[in-house]
């Protein structure tokens, strides 16, 4: 039985990089603020071609290597749909791991409240939940390798 650990897949390698850029633009009353210097580290390497995938249209005709950290990215980071899907998958795997921990904690509270059967069932559910999340972690790992 697994308790209190993260099944967040991803490569074991990490790298740091930093860069600075600035750009500001406004359209349709919505201002994009993309001005910063940042250094960051993440656990996978990937090439960067970026497309905007959020809910309104605007044009950004440059791409740059932001290393996955788009905050303040000049011109608005343009990530490929696959990069966004991988980021979403990574978020989901981590999020599921956090939910599994919360459910395990809930199970212990049920046990303390005298509901041993409920405790066992919830812990069995946590185990199934983590098995599912392990599958997702494996998928994530395979996506991040590409």
């Amino acid at each position, binding site marked *: 039985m697994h308790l209190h650990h993260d099944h967040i897949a991803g490569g074991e390698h990490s790298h740091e990089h930093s860069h600075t850029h600035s750009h500001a633009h406004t359209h349709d*009353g*919505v*201002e*994009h*603020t*993309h001005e910063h210097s940042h250094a960051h580290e993440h656990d996978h390497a990937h090439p960067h071609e970026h497309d*905007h*995938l*959020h*809910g*309104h249209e605007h044009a950004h005709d440059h791409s740059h290597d932001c290393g*996955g*950290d*788009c*905050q*303040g*990215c000049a011109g*608005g*980071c343009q*990530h490929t749909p696959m*990069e*966004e899907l991988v*980021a*979403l998958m990574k*978020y989901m795997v981590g*999020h599921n791991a*956090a*939910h599994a921990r919360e459910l395990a904690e809930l199970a212990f509270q049920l046990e303390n409240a005298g509901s041993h059967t409920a405790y066992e069932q919830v812990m069995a559910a946590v185990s199934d939940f983590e098995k599912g999340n392990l599958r997702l972690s494996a998928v994530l790992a395979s996506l991040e390798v590409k």
Partner: protein
Amino acid sequence: MCLSTVYKNSKTEDAIVMKNVMSIECVDGAVILTDLMDRQITVEGVLASANLVDGYVIVKTN
């Protein structure tokens, strides 16, 4: 702990400002949205409502 979709004034498809929003900051009459990819959008307006269970937020613009 879930991501949200932020809408401008009304919860309609054409009013989506940003999806997969992970943080919202309200500063001086503006709402700063940051998504999963760390992109930021600033909307001039105020937070009108947030449904954290269903994962959507409505910003009322000026």
